[in-house]
């Protein structure tokens, strides 16, 4: 019976991917940009889901990784003229090196200590970007311009980037979802649930923790890169420390540890502010904060899992039943 569900899951994935891609044909330029940024958030939230949701390491550094990825692609494009798909890969790799180093404190620190140190990273990005102006353009930022569409492809730059963003987001989800369910992911969950017991079972904490940080930073960097390409401009004020918290909202809305939920989380993070801003610019933040508090209190696994349970159905759609 798990076969039937696997087919259903695949069909859902296919339909959603096709629906997302077809958006390129009917969305206007403004909405294309918005959905591209939503895909950028989605990729970053997928990464955060690996380190927080699966490995259980509280990271508030995802906003910093997002920023590093955005600056990396801007610098690669402006200084070296790297084509943007290659630039995205490079941005992800550079960021994952930073993520690996940022993961080192996780070997000694746990829980709130790790949250504080990673928050420190998120806070430090702003003054460093401002000061290191020879590389980052300082407060004035860096201008990337539009992406170039290869000859023979009849698309606007926005459409072309949108397609790339959707494909990358889908790839991120599929890769992360597979990793989470692989033996590696199970080892990560073991570290989350009980470090000492996991160690006793032969899990090497050093590799799992730094690896989880490096992987989450890779996705964070690629997400930041897509963001920079879509906005066409990178400046310190895009990466306030609260960005890390917004991405955290994303995993809580989607369900911590449930990778496909990142789609819902990203849509929430990208579009709720727009509607809330119609009333007041700051209402969105209040709303996000309230969402964290309420979801943690009443639906700690996220609405995607809590709602089916409310109606008495198992979440068979997402999980193979064990032992059948």
């Amino acid at each position: 019976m798990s076969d039937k569900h696997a087919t259903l899951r695949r069909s859902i994935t296919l339909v959603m991917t096709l629906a997302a891609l077809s958006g390129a044909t009917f969305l206007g330029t403004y909405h294309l940009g918005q959905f591209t940024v939503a895909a950028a958030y989605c990729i970053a939230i997928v990464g955060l889901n690996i380190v927080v949701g699966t490995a259980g390491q509280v990271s508030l550094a995802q906003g910093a990784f997002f920023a590093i990825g955005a600056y990396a692609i801007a610098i690669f494009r402006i200084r070296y003229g790297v084509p943007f798909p290659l630039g995205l890969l490079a941005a992800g790799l550079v960021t994952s090196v930073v993520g690996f180093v940022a993961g080192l404190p996780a070997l000694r620190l746990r829980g709130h200590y790790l949250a504080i140190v990673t928050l420190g990273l998120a806070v430090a990005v702003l003054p460093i970007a401002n000061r290191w102006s020879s590389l980052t353009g300082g407060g004035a930022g860096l201008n990337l311009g539009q992406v170039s569409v290869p000859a023979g492809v009849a698309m606007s730059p926005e459409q072309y980037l949108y397609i790339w963003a959707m494909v990358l987001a889908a790839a991120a989800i599929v890769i992360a979802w597979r990793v989470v369910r692989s033996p590696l992911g199970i080892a990560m969950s073991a570290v989350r649930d009980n470090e000492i017991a996991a160690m006793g079972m032969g899990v090497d904490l050093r590799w799992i923790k730094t690896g989880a940080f490096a992987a989450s930073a890779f996705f964070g960097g690629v997400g930041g890169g897509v963001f920079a390409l879509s906005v066409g401009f990178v400046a310190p004020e895009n990466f306030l420390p609260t960005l890390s918290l917004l991405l955290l909202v994303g995993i809580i809305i989607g369900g911590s540890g449930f990778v496909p939920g990142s789609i819902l989380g990203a849509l929430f993070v990208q579009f709720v502010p727009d509607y809330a801003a119609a009333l007041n610019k700051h209402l969105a933040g209040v709303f996000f904060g309230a969402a964290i508090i309420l979801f943690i209190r009443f639906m700690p696994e996220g609405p995607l899992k809590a709602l089916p349970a409310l109606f008495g159905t198992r979440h068979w759609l997402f999980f193979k039943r064990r032992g059948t």
Partner: protein
Amino acid sequence: MPEGLVQVILDGSASGTIYAAVALALVLVYKSSGIVNFAQGEMGMFCTFITWWLNQQGLGLLTAIASGLSIAFVLGVLTERLFIRPVARFGEFPAVLTTLGLFLVFNELAPWLWGPENRAFPSLFGAGVLAIGKARVSTESVGTLVVMIAAVSVFFFVLHHTKIGLGMRAAAANAVSSSLSGVPAPQMFMLGWGLATTLATLAGVLIAPRLFLDASLMLGVIIYAFAAAALGGFTSLLGAVVGGLVIGLAETLASNYVDFIGSDLKILVPLTVLLVVLLVRPTGLFAKSAERAV
């Protein structure tokens, strides 16, 4: 000793006492509820806004501050009861996330209610300058130093020489045993949150004249306070105070005498201290040996 140095040391100590107050608030909450309150600074900022608003409504500055501090106490008590206690039993992770949610709520509630502009906050001590020997220091720094030392002394006196302080320490040390001995532990936790928020608000009121009042008032301060609290291993009240002073002095000395750091990179000073302390001695410089359970 050059006059400039005296001034820098006094300014550094004044900042240090502010970090110490917020660090004390963090330690107080950590000792009672076992969680780090990421929203502590923002709660202080929010109540500083209330104080400012009361002052704008025509209340005298001292009355406004007294009311602001009382409101802060109630806010702290209610936050513990309504938001923290229901999730605390699920462990540290949900509680930390809840405080991050509170952080966002207060951080955005203030500009929503009062607008995003910078507000000039009146100083309790005027804008005068005192001459100590040849050195010239602002009454602001001296006043902050005096008020904060007084507040921290009162706080320590209450905690160590009154019955209610004994109850708080007992509840923090072991909630179950102290309940069995007749200490109302849940009320003690609420009291801890109330006092912590009052301290954070006092810090906000004293620092607001220097930094101007807006939603980011405490963003920097909370990082310094984290570093200060970590120096004390998050469990030592004395360690938090000493840590606050050390961080305040280090920051002011570094930004005045190290060209590379200057005023824009001084946030890296507490971050470096924090990282080094946590990596070398995660239990802090003052903490007794920690135990670990499976």
